[in-house]
C-alpha cells in the first residue's frame, strides 16, 4: 500500500537572487513497511527532501501526497495536526524534552492526541520495552546515554502509530555499538509494526541495513535501488 507519493517536487532557495535548487524534480513513491535510506553527499538535498516530506517546509513546485492527502492543500494549523497524526520524527540531536522523563517524552505526543491514560500507559510501556528501556522509564534524558536518548526518540516517533517515520541522520551522534543497537531496534519495529522508515544518512551501517537506497545528487534522484 502506498503511504507517500512525491510528485516532481522541487525546492528553490533565494528565488530572487542566486537560485539554489536544493531539490530538483524529485518523484518517488513509498510503500507501507519500507526501510529506505536517502543517501548522497553534503548539500545533495537529503535533509531538504526530508523536511518537505515531513511538511516542515513547502515545495516550490510539485506535490507531496501522504495517504491520499496533498500537503499543499492543508492550512498551517491543519498541517501541524496532520504531522502529529501521520508522521514520526527522529532528529540527529535526539531533541527530547529535558525536563520530562523517558516515559513522559514518549507519551507526550499521545497526550497531544488526547489518548486515555490507560492507552498511553500501555503504548508507552510497550514501546519502551521494544527499545529496551523499560527500566529507564523514569529517567530524565540527562541521565541517559546518547544511544538511549535516541531510542527514546524512536519510541516517541512511533508512539502515535504514524504512517511513516522520518529519521534525519539518526546515528550521526552515536558510537558504533549504540548505532548498531539503534538500527537493529528500528528494523525490528519496522518489521513488526509495518511502519515505513525513511532515513537521510551518510552512515554506511544504515545503508547496509536499508532495503531501499535512494541516492541524491544536486537535488536529483540519481539512483533508486530496492
Amino acid at each position, binding site marked *: 500500500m502506498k503511504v507517500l507519493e512525491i510528485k516532481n517536487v522541487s525546492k528553490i532557495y533565494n528565488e530572487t537572487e542566486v537560485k539554489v535548487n536544493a531539490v530538483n524534480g524529485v518523484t518517488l513513491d513509498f510503500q507501507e513497511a519500507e526501510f529506505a535510506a536517502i543517501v548522497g553527499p553534503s548539500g545533495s538535498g537529503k535533509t531538504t527532501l526530508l523536511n518537505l516530506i515531513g511538511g*516542515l517546509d513547502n515545495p516550490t513546485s510539485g506535490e507531496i501526497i501522504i495517504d491520499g492527502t496533498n500537503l499543499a492543500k492543508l492550512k498551517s494549523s491543519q498541517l*501541524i495536526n496532520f504531522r502529529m*497524526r501521520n508522521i514520526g*520524527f527522529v532528529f540527529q540531536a535526539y531533541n527530547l524534552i*529535558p525536563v*520530562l522523563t523517558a516515559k513522559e517524552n514518549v507519551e*507526550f*505526543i499521545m497526550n497531544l492526541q488526547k489518548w486515555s491514560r490507560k492507552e498511553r500507559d500501555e503504548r508507552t510501556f510497550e514501546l519502551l520495552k521494544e527499545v529496551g528501556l523499560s527500566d529507564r522509564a523514569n529517567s530524565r534524558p540527562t541521565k541517559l546515554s546518547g544511544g538511549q536518548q535516541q531510542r527514546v526518540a524512536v519510541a*516517541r516517533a512511533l508512539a502515535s502509530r504514524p504512517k511513516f517515520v522520518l529519521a534525519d541522520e539518526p546515528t550521526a551522534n552515536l558510537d558504533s555499538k549504540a548505532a548498531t543497537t539503534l538500527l537493529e531496534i528500528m528494523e525490528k519495529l519496522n518489521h513488526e509494526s509495518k511502519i515505513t522508515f525513511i532515513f537521510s544518512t551518510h552512515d554506511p551501517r544504515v545503508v547496509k541495513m536499508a532495503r531501499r537506497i535512494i541516492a541524491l545528487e544536486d537535488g536529483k534522484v540519481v539512483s533508486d535501488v530496492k
Partner: protein
Amino acid sequence: MLINMIWKTAWKNVWRNRVRSLVVISSVTIGIFAGVFSVALMNGLIAQRVDDALNEEISHIQIASKDFRINNDPQLVIGNPDETLSKIRSVEGVIGICERTVLTGMANTASKSAGVQITGIDPEKEKQVFTVSEKIIPGTGDYFEKESKYNLALIGEELAKDLNIIRYSVDTSTLSRLKEKGLPANIITKLIPLTGKRFANEKQFIKEMKTLFTAGEAMKYGLIIRKEAWSFREGARLTLTFLDKDNNQVGAVFRLTGLYDVANSIFEKGTVFVKNSDLTKLTGIAENTFHQIVVKINNLDHTDELTTTLAEKLPELEVISWKKIQPDLAMMTDMVGQFYLIFGLIILAALAFGIINTMLMVVLERTRELGMLTAIGMNKKRVFSMIMLESVFLSLIGAVTGMITSYILISITANSGINLSQYAEGFEALGYSARVYPQISAGFFGIVTILIIITGILSSIYPAMKALKLNPVEAIRAE
C-alpha cells in the same frame, strides 16, 4: 489530560534554570511585599487618622445655625434646642449627641498667648461622642471630674508647650525613669550636667540638648527625654478672652483641670475645652442654648444617608457630615483606591519587564526544543499556553511568597503597631499617630492575585509571539 501535560511541562520548565527563576521570583516577591505592606501601612495611617478625627475632633455629623460655621457669631445659637435634640434622637442610627458652645478667642499666660477655639461642653454628654476624656496625660489632672469653684479648662499638650505652661527639668527621678525605659548609660551620663536646671519652654531645652548630643542621638532619644523631662503644675492658670453674646470682649481666668494628648498637634494647639455652664455665665448666652450639636452614628458607611435625613428634619439648620467638615480627609479616603491602583500598576509594570526579559531568554535558549515541538505536532495555541503558563507560574510563586511574607508581617504589627516615635512630631503635625497599625482586607490579596495573573499573561505575549514565529526547520538546527 492534555491540559495537565501542558501545566506539568510548564511547571517543570520553571525549574529548569533554578537560579534565574529564583531571581525573578525574588524580585516579584519583593515587589509584591513592598506593594502590599505599603498599602497596609497607608490603610493603617488613614484608618487611624479618620478614627482619631471622628472620635477626638469632629465626630460624624455637626449641626449648627446656617451661618455659624462662616461667621462664628456668638449670637447664632440653635433655636428650640429641646425640639431639635428630640428630632435628632428620633433618627435611627444616632448613638450619641452632645451640645457645644463654640467661641473663638485667645488663650494667654504671663509670657505667651495663642489664638484658640474655646469649646463649651457638658463633660458627661461629651463622653458619649468623643474619647478626649481617655486622652488625659497621666499626672496632669482629670477630665472635669472634680468639683471646683473656679472656671476650669482642659488644654492640649501642644498648647501648654506654646504657652510655656509645660516646663522642662532633669532630676534624679527623671534619670531613673529614662534608665527604666532602656536608654543607654552613655546617654543618661550626658544628661547629668542638666540636673537641677529648669527650662521655661521646649525650645530652650532642645537648644541645651543639642550641645550635649549628636544629631543621631537627639533624633533617636530626644523625644523620650523631652517626654520624661517635662513638668506641669496641676491647677496652673490661663486667661481666656472671647466675645460675649453682645459681641463685647470678655476675659476670665481658668484653672487647668488637665492636659490632653491626641495624635493631632494642630487640634491640640487650637482647642480649649471648658464647661458649658462656665461659658454661658461669662457670655450671657441663655442656659440650654448652644451653637453646635455633634452627632455620633453607629455606622460610618451611613454618614451620607443620615446627614440627608437629619437635614430634611432640620431644614432651618445646617447639617454637615465629617466629609464636608474635613474635605481633605474625605478626599483621602475616596482617592486612596485610585492611588493604590496607580502605585500597583507601577510595581506590576516594573515586574512585567523583568518577566518579559526572562521569558525572552527562555524562548531563545529553547529555540531547538520549540522547533521540535512544532514539528511533532504541538500547535500554536499549545505552545503559547505553555509559555504563558511558565510566565504565570513565575509571577504567581513570587506573588504568593510576597503576600505570605507581608501577611505575616502585617499580622505581627497589626496588634503591636509600628513605632515611628522618632518621627512623632512630624506625624502629629499632620494629624497622624506615630504608632501605625497596618491593616489590609482579605479581598485585597484576591485583587493582587488577579492582577499578578494578568501581569503574567500580558508579560508572556511578546515572548510567546516570538516562539510562534519560529520556523521549525531553522529552529531544529539552531545551536
